[in-house]
């Protein structure tokens, strides 16, 4: 059973359609890269999967006891976060907010989970540091640790290497690869097609033409896709 299956999905804001007829599925352990030009609707699709935007038509089915709120989300950084006074631990702990339910305070197990994920991202030494004083790569690790608190199964990453230097980019990719190997499904939005080909098992290309298939198939069809987009 697929974890996420999109059947003939139309994404968009209100009455404005961004993308029509999207069909793809994500199975446990997959590493799916969503690639496409700026403005092709990658982020819109991601927000739709997360349930932040309504599905305009078609259907998104969740299997494997998953719902849209069980997805660990790594959003792009916002202006607000750049000078937000918060410790690394505070940020990571907030990944457990779904488990607060009616209680006002986090449970011991939530705190334990935060500590574990901080260790998993190898940032234990930064735990008490102020988030805004970290480097871009360190901040991304913090947000990844937070996303891991929200899920044990599937991560949705929105341009996780945007604005990082080459070394941090490599480190980020290898961290994500390790998470994938440990059994976590990865869905990543990316500009970086070479990285997508290197790491992903499946690729969804959206734009004027849509492609979904394994990375091998994508490599075969890639030049056709690009040529066709130029003609269109």
């Amino acid at each position, binding site marked *: 059973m697929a974890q996420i299956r999109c059947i003939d999905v139309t994404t968009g804001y209100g009455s404005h359609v961004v993308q029509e007829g999207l069909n793809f599925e994500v199975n446990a352990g997959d590493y799916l890269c969503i690639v496409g030009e700026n403005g092709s609707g990658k982020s819109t699709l991601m927000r739709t999967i997360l349930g932040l935007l309504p599905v305009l038509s078609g259907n998104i089915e969740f299997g494997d006891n998953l719902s849209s*709120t069980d997805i660990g989300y790594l959003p792009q950084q916002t202006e607000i976060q750049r000078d937000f006074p918060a410790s690394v631990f505070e940020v990571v702990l*907030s990944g457990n907010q779904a488990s607060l339910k009616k209680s006002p305070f*986090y449970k011991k197990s939530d705190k334990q989970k935060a500590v574990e994920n901080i260790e998993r991202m190898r940032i234990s030494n930064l735990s008490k540091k102020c988030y805004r004083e970290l480097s871009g790569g360190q901040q991304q690790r913090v947000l990844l640790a937070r996303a891991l608190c929200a899920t044990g199964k599937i991560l949705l990453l929105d341009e996780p290497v945007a604005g990082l230097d080459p070394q941090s980019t490599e480190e980020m990719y290898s961290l994500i690869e390790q998470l994938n190997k440990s059994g976590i499904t990865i869905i990543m939005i990316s500009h970086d097609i070479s990285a997508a080909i290197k790491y992903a098992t499946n690729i969804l290309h959206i734009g004027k033409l849509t492609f979904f298939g394994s990375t091998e198939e994508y490599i075969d069809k890639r030049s056709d896709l690009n040529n066709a987009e130029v003609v269109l």
Partner: protein
Amino acid sequence: MTAMFDKLTQYLAFDFTKNALIVGVLIALCSSLLGVILVLKRYSFIGDGLSHVAFGSLAIAGVLNFTNEMPTILIITIFASILLLGGTKKKLSGDASLAIISVASLGLGYLLMNIFARNRPNLSGDVCTVLFGSTSILTLSKSDVIISSVLSVLVVLFFVFFYNRIFAITFDEDFSRSCGVKVKLYNYSVAVIIAVIVVLSMNLVGSLLSSALIIFPALTAMRVFKTFKSVTIAAALISVFTATLGILAAIVFGTPVGSTIVAVETVGFLIFTVIGAIA
């Protein structure tokens, strides 16, 4: 020095001084908590805009001869909600609508007061009181004290119980939404609370200065402290301390309460800025 001290003890023996202190400290406490959210969300100006709206709605209430402020609170709450929720995505238009609502209500408020209260003996004095707070807050009625206390306690309880959610949502609304948290409900609650606090603090410092009570403690705390918890606690303490000092100084020197508190807060801000720069 002893003369000042005598004056203070003499005043503190009166109930109205105690009331003023209680109300002042409570209002300062809850506006500082709210200020942490507003400053971090880049909504510093909302308090200012809303207090102008409060001025306008007070004028309307005056024209209609309403004696209590409840309608005022309601009108502002609605404005606050529109501003907060309308301004989340479209930054520019949120900014512009705030400016328009702010100046329009200030202008209309004064116009209304002039047209309908011409025969009042001391119009400019009244306006000055609304804008800058009464020359002393020693005129608070018993019901003012009770209403302020109850609302302040409610605001503080809201903060304690929702502290973790407030942090999470303020830091990253989209992430919270992706966890299934009802962000909209929270934004509405904050909008309602802002309105309540602005109206409460008008009693204390007047409508022009009420946003000082909201933003100064948070900004001051952020000069030095770097985690959300420490900023929140420090802002609350700074606010209570400066408000107390300001009220006492106003009594001793016979200065207007609002501007005295703001002066103390400004000094506090400068001190913390220096400490932050050195540390």
